[in-house]
């Protein structure tokens, strides 16, 4: 990581990730492949202005042309008190991700088995965002092309979708209420989505969050929940008291895949730590999934933590498929 102060009030910083790999994928030609991936991130900040860019490079030693050098991201950001404007590549989420979520897993490298290329693990939005974060009123507006990271950098198919969304919120008496509206466009076809979320404290140290999102193009009746409709519901309730804490979540996702997977509704599966082989043991099937997750933990005075977690999901296709996970840990 390098920091170099150009003058008293501005600075350049950055980081670089480089990884060489020699490995194979059995039953694929060539099975052995030697590759080098490099990701350079540079940012410049001068008071309320920031600009940054990312260059990714990939080189492989084989006869197939997989190499690339790509300016993968750039960003211009202006932040003044409660206002923020971003132009370029950035990450945003609507609500808890039922409609849209962009994200990055930092310092991680993703390998696509089909293309045999490697790239950073991120799904960003390329466009413009405007945010106002006041004490009572908040507003977010975004417009851009989401990244489809199943294609390697520089591929024309990486950004074929477009979204435009707004999210006003109001916070009053510790309660929050937000609305979401999103227009999704892909290959000339337009779909409208809307959503609502609420959050806040309840008596006896409980807190809740609830979100509902729906495809308004096919059936705008927000109170209809038949199998043909497209909607997503998520609710959580949590509680803590002294050394004890608990959270309970419910989900119901019905025909709610948006585009190439630009949304990321909560999975309601425990995100595991480094001790397990799989960090996430379940991928939600947004065509039809319902379920819950319950977690309770207690911290002992010496700092040890006892955690119990139970989650269950059901997918109804021709048959009903269940996924269950029970977890108990003392650490």
């Amino acid at each position, binding site marked *: *990581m*390098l*920091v170099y*102060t150009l003058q008293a009030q501005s*600075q350049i*910083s950055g*980081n*670089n*990730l*480089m990884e060489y790999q020699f490995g194979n994928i059995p039953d694929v030609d060539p099975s052995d492949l030697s590759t080098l991936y*490099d990701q*350079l*991130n540079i*940012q410049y*900040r001068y*008071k*309320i202005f*920031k600009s940054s860019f990312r260059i990714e*490079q990939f080189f492989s030693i084989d006869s197939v042309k997989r190499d690339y*050098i790509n300016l993968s991201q750039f960003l211009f950001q202006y*932040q003044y008190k409660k206002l923020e404007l971003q132009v370029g590549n950035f*990450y945003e*989420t609507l609500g*808890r991700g039922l409609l849209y979520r*962009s*994200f*990055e897993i*930092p*310092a991680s490298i993703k390998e696509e088995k089909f293309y045999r290329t490697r790239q950073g693990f991120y799904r960003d939005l390329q466009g413009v965002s405007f945010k106002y974060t*006041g*004490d009572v009123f*908040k507003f977010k507006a975004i417009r851009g092309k989401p990244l489809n990271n199943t294609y390697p950098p520089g591929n024309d198919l990486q950004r074929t979708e477009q979204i435009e969304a707004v999210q006003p919120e109001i*916070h009053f008496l*510790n309660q929050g209420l937000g609305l979401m509206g999103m227009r999704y466009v892909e290959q000339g076809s337009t779909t409208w989505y809307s959503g609502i979320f609420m959050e*806040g*404290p309840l008596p006896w140290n409980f*807190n809740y*969050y609830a979100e509902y999102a729906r495809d308004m193009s096919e059936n705008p009746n927000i109170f209809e929940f038949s199998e043909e409709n497209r909607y997503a519901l998520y609710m*959580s309730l*949590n*509680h*803590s008291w002294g*050394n004890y*804490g*608990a*959270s309970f*979540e419910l989900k119901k996702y019905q025909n709610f895949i948006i585009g190439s997977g630009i949304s*990321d509704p*909560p*999975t309601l*599966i*425990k*995100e595991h*730590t480094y001790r397990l082989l799989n*960090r996430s043991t379940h991928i939600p099937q947004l065509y039809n999934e319902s379920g819950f997750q319950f*977690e309770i*933990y207690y*911290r002992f005075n010496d*700092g040890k933590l006892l955690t119990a977690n139970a989650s269950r999901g059901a997918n109804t296709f021709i048959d009903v498929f269940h996924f269950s996970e029970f977890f108990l840990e003392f*650490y």
Partner: protein
Amino acid sequence: MRCYYLFIGFFLSILSVKGQTIYDFRLENTEGKTVSYFELKGKELTVIDFWATWCKPCVNSLPKIAGLASTYDPESVSFIGISIDSPRNLSKVRPFAETMGIMYPVLLDTEQQLMQELNITVIPTLVITNAENEVVFIHEGFAAGDEVLLKKEIDHFLDEKN
């Protein structure tokens, strides 16, 4: 051209860093209110601790950091917790922080914007800034006894100031 980029990358990867200045970031706390760094910073030092509910070393460190925070005047040495949990774990952040005994503000860096701004790639990472908003100390990871090291560093910077 390829060699040029590789050379820059290699050169940058072997240099160390200090002295980055933190901007006045704004993030939402666990009560849904957006607060700024300048509202929360301490008069002399600010300790910013990045963690996540699914991170085991973070689970080890949080009660120790919370205990460390209680030994200082919050006006002088302010502690800020930054949770980088994604929406899939957000419902757990508030009860988890309270269970860990955290009495200082916990902010949500869900998009990891601040994490990227400070070039942080691992958690837990603890950053100490001074009154001029300069990063004066960074500590990555947490092992038993690190709270003693952190206290020494904080006391050292306070003594320097006085």
